[in-house]
């Protein structure tokens, strides 16, 4: 079977700013941060950390009361994002006929239903309960998001979730992409969701000493990838989803095509659980380029993994310099986590959406708060304020996870179709 071209026909997210997709992208271009100080009432010691939450998310409004009540927050965010992407693609919520019997969903989540089980532990160990409600198990299922998306949209093909830490949803998108390209499915929904504010999860990140320090006033500016004065990463919650579609299928039904997913490369550093290695990232970048039949000269923008850690940032720039050689100096790079935080399993999907919008709109959102470049991160064209009216034809989005798993997605702008 001839490989199919893969169109991106639907984009959906739960925005930390509370608005729609256009509003989200406009705020990123304006350099507006969604990061605030999060206070909780947890025992024995409340959380107080910079965080990019979705405080305006109304699960009942997005999903209806019965469905919202069946889901833990990570799955609520995921299904809401999937619905938004599906609506954006102009597809109906209910299936007609059996066309969707081989359509599927591939999801990514690093933590899955962790918050649901955490609630159980609290009830049993802190709140004096002796038993848990029957829905506790349903809430805690790590595949709850993909399963409910399949149920709600009538998708009869593969339905699964990948857990690959910070690369979860990039890998989900890549694996879904392969199924559309091979002709196995005309339409696949892919994305990810996560809620890393689970108490023990947040505390565990804190213990690793990689989280940014901030107070109320400095929180919006505390995530500074590639900066000499960075203090660490900022966790965020959210959900993001893309509809991937056989190009001819999309054209035949008159769908709006936002961009083309042209290639996917995934590798493992196979060296260390948390210390990234440039060699593994180089192989992933080259694999994505080769898969997309693109060369480094074609790439106008890279949405970097850029988490703002001294361990990660220089290695990533080192890998880009290796791959792009003399062209690296002219390569536009930005790390939008400076504005929306690190959504763990949802990060790759959110950043894929940002990359598609950058290509579609000809506008590059910045790495915010990057005033003092870390010399170890020099050698690429860091985008520190938004660039508009850019003729962008192709771009990469990178996710480099704990565990050494790397995933790079390669996108083409629609206007640049060969």
């Amino acid at each position, binding site marked *: 079977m001839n490989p199919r071209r893969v169109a991106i026909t639907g984009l959906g997210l739960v925005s930390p700013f509370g608005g729609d997709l256009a509003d989200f992208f406009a705020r990123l271009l304006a350099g507006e941060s969604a990061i605030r100080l999060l206070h909780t009432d947890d025992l024995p010691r409340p959380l107080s950390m910079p965080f990019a939450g979705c405080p305006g998310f109304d699960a009942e409004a997005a999903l*209806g*009361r*019965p469905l919202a*009540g069946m889901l833990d927050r990570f799955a609520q965010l995921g299904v809401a994002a999937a619905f938004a992407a599906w609506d954006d693609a102009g597809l109906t919520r209910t299936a007609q006929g059996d066309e969707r019997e081989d359509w599927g969903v591939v999801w990514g989540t690093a933590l899955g239903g962790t918050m649901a089980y955490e609630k159980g532990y609290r009830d049993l160990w802190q709140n004096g309960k002796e038993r848990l*409600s*029957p*829905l506790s198990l349903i809430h805690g299922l790590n595949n709850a998001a993909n399963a409910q998306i399949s149920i709600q949209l009538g998708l009869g093909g593969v339905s699964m979730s990948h857990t690959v830490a910070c690369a979860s949803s990039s890998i989900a998108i890549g694996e879904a992409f392969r199924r559309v390209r091979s002709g196995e499915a005309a339409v696949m929904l892919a994305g990810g969701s996560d809620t890393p504010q689970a108490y023990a999860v947040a505390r565990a990140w804190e213990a690793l000493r990689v989280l940014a320090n901030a107070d109320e006033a400095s929180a919006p500016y505390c995530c500074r990838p590639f900066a000499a004065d960075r203090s660490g990463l900022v966790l965020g919650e959210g959900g993001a989803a893309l509809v991937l579609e056989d190009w001819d299928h999309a054209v035949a039904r008159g769908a709006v095509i936002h961009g083309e997913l042209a290639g996917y490369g995934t590798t493992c550093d196979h060296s260390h659980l948390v210390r990234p290695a440039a060699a593994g990232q180089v192989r992933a970048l080259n694999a994505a380029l080769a898969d997309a039949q693109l060369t480094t000269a074609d790439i106008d923008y890279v949405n970097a993994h850029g988490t703002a850690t001294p361990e990660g940032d220089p290695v990533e720039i080192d890998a880009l310099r290796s791959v792009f050689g003399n062209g690296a100096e002219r390569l536009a790079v930005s790390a939008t986590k400076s504005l929306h935080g690190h959504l763990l399993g949802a990060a790759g999907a959110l950043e894929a959406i940002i990359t598609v919008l950058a290509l579609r709109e000809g506008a590059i959102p910045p790495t915010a708060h990057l005033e003092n470049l870390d010399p170890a991160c020099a050698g690429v064209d860091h985008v520190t304020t938004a660039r508009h009216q850019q003729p962008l034809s192709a771009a990469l989005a990178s996710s480099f996870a704990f565990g050494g798993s790397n995933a790079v997605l390669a996108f083409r702008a629609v206007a640049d179709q060969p």
Partner: protein
Amino acid sequence: MNSLTLIREFLDGRLGVPPDKVVPEATLAALGVDSLMMLELVFEFEDRFGIALAKDLKSPKTVGDMVALMERLRSEKS
């Protein structure tokens, strides 16, 4: 609280079913109570009244059946 009120509050809170639809002759399935939601409803009842239902209990079909079951268990307990 009587058993019908408990069922009404539960269905309103969990599924958004208006209380005036929760009448004795209504079937639980038609109100959106599937097997999972039935487990939750039983759990809520047990929790509220300190009663443990037998595991092999036959599921009631209508709101009226459910009310009758709850009332019987409560009177047996008291």
